[in-house]
């Protein structure tokens, strides 16, 4: 159950990144189950986008069919862990942003999970998350996210 919850959490983060930063959202994005999400045996969760992230600081350009290219941002650390994003550009226009790494503090979350009124029902969130358009709170994550995104964009001009 915990493992499921961890995988779901990572999916929700991924969903947020898609919903909040996708340049052309249309209909609500369906949750893609555990696609692109791996929960390790001890519940360690990582959020790879499409394969392992390249070495830190290496500008990577992935040619694609429609003239898009993917640039990987720096790893930006905050108190909860590392944030790294990749940006997909078509010319100079951002068409997608992918989360390569997001923080997930297993030890701390397990401690919190044993508290009296901690996380709201995962089932409820699972049922409704396909309808979530935006995410509040968590400045620590969005700041790190912005920094990593900026570094990816800098590479586009560099």
């Amino acid at each position, binding site marked *: 159950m915990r493992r499921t919850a961890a995988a779901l959490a990572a999916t*929700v983060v991924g969903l947020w990144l898609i919903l909040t930063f996708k340049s052309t959202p249309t209909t609500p994005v369906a949750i893609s189950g555990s696609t692109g999400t791996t929960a390790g045996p001890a519940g360690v969760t990582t959020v790879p986008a499409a394969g392992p992230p390249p070495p830190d600081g290496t500008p990577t350009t992935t040619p694609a069919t429609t003239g898009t290219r993917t640039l990987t941002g720096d790893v930006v650390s905050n108190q909860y862990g590392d944030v790294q994003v990749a940006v997909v550009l078509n010319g100079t226009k951002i068409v997608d942003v992918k989360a390569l790494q997001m923080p997930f503090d297993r030890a701390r979350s397990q401690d919190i999970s044993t508290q009296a009124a901690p996380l709201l029902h995962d089932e409820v969130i699972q049922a409704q998350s396909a309808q979530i358009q935006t995410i*509040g709170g968590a400045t620590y994550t969005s700041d790190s996210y912005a920094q990593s995104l900026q570094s990816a964009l800098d590479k586009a001009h560099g």
Partner: protein
Amino acid sequence: MANHHRVELVMGTAISIDVRDEVSGDALDEVVAWFHHVDETFSTYRPDSPVSRLGRGEIDLAACDPDVQWVLSRGDEVRRATGGAFDMFASGVLDPSGLVKGWSVEVASAMLAERGSANHCINAGGDIRLRGEPQPGQPWHAGICHPLVPGRLTVIVAGRDLAVATSGTAERGHHVIDPRSGRPASALASVTVVGPELTLTDCYATAALALGLDGPEWLEGLDDHDAYVIDAGGHAWWTEGFGRHCPTVATMARPALLQRR
């Protein structure tokens, strides 16, 4: 429904502008330019910004942009209305950031409304102004991150014309000071306030965080605003009216007031 979506890195954060109406591209450009203007005027990280110069006493308030005068005057009103819990001078130097972010988003939302957008969502680093609907017949839904468990949501707020602001001790590089002790407030991990517009809603979230364990009772006494609070130990509490904005707690029994543990 038409879609225009823009993400702009400005004011030290990422601002997402999600418009679900047909508006001209100029409307989004205007809003983006507005945020850059606010950044240049109010940033405390830019030594040459008018607010930095004002804080150092190099210029008089009378010489400042009318927006600066308005923000300082409004900040003073909010300080009095919150019994000093919201104070732009809490850290010892002028820092209007706690009011400027919410206010600038509120102004941006009004700009979009004037340009014919009745349906949009602006999210500035986790503080949100919602108008209208993302799709016909459906309210906007905002997931609120759990302050102690990165990557997980704690609650979902739904609304058609609503401001949602969260203030937390985890905010990077930004300690909220309890003006009564002069020390960082640490009893609450996060306070999410919902209200009719973002300027005051954001200030109330900051004020309640500063008040610590006295915050919840103070929040319960506010008109037109409701709140969801998580203390440093991960215990949740919410105001009586919060369920109106939150399908996830509407059917739950409300926990007792938070206590020192």
